[in-house]
């Protein structure tokens, strides 16, 4: 299932001429909000190649919220600068195996790893077709995050997201604003989200 199917159902249920662009925007907003709030149930895992001496990296383009990070087998702590200060007075310059990931002093799409990686990750060569199995590279850095996918969304999201997007569309100031109808859509969408465990 993809977002176009959600939009198609929302258009069908809303009956009146709905604004195509705002509806698409509302659907994107709903997935973003669910992902950022940790309520979304769509996750991805990626291996990030590290370069020795480089500590700043970008999140994957579709990442919304970092859930966890791993260096080799160890789960990496998410921390801020105060934590890092407590960890080591020389935290800004120390090198070694990554222990901490932080977004302090970075923009939303970037993160920094401490200590500064002393080893470059081996390349992922999926000889057995199992990058997370037998082919898992040495010195690998792995990110687990909620993602902002367009496709491969389970069908169970179609109706709740369609109703929530209709609610927002009819809340929005326009020639078809209808707050009572919008409120009813929000309320049913909320129940459906509860039923699917969001």
């Amino acid at each position: 299932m993809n977002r176009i199917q959600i939009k198609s159902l929302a258009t069908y249920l809303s009956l009146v001429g709905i604004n195509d662009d705002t509806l698409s925007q509302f659907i994107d907003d709903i997935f973003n909000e669910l992902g950022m709030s940790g309520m979304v149930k769509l996750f991805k895992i990626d291996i990030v190649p590290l370069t020795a001496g480089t500590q700043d990296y970008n999140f994957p383009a579709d990442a919304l919220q970092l859930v966890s990070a791993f260096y080799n087998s160890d789960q990496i702590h998410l921390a801020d600068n105060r934590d890092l200060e407590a960890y080591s007075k020389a935290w800004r310059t120390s090198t070694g195996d990554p222990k901490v990931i932080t977004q302090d002093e970075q923009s939303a799409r970037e993160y920094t790893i401490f200590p500064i990686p002393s080893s470059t990750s081996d390349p992922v060569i999926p000889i057995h077709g199992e990058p997370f199995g037998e082919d898992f590279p040495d010195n690998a850095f792995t990110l687990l995050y909620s993602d902002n996918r367009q496709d491969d969304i389970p069908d169970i999201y179609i109706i709740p997201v369609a109703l929530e997007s209709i609610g927002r569309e009819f809340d929005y100031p326009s020639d078809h604003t209808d707050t009572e109808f919008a409120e009813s859509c929000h309320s049913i969408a909320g129940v459906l989200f509860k039923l699917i465990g969001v």
Partner: protein
Amino acid sequence: MTRQIGPIVEILMQRVRQSGGLAVSENQAVSIYSLCEQITNLSTKRVTESSTVTIPKEKLIFPFRVLLPNAIGIKRITESGREILRARSINDLSSYDIGWFRSISGTRFESWTQIGFDLLVLYPGSAAATTVDIEYVKLLTHHTDFAASYNIDSELPSEDVEIALSLAEIILLKRFRLLTTIKSKFTELKKLLLQRGIKI
């Protein structure tokens, strides 16, 4: 006793019929009804399937919908008849073993957890390929063609069909802005769900 999709959808169409109003197409009705069946089953978790899955060596994390395309939630995992304990989240695994992510120690799995609707973790990784039996909540079929699905049995137990039917009715009534009717139907739905122990 099972019920067939066609007659259920006909009941749905009778319930939402509005004199002088726009008709709901049969294909739209069957599509919305079967999406409601999926949501109903995810909340009741009553339609399940089991499958034996091969776990490659040294692999702990799996995209489970690739392994089990009809799965939407994992209920139970057994290895040679022994039930593997479920961890509530990866934080539980982390509290137990900070190096759980690549822990390849064993000959038997100790724990599993599901991460959202995508990933399954089986801990610790096995040193050799092995198999486990997975019981999962089934993502029911999404029917979109009324004629083709008419004589197909609904996968829901007959006592749960009314929940899906009520949900579909409420959603289709939205189209006609019958907000007072929706409100009373919603109260009925809440009662139905409460009878199944589902509080909303």
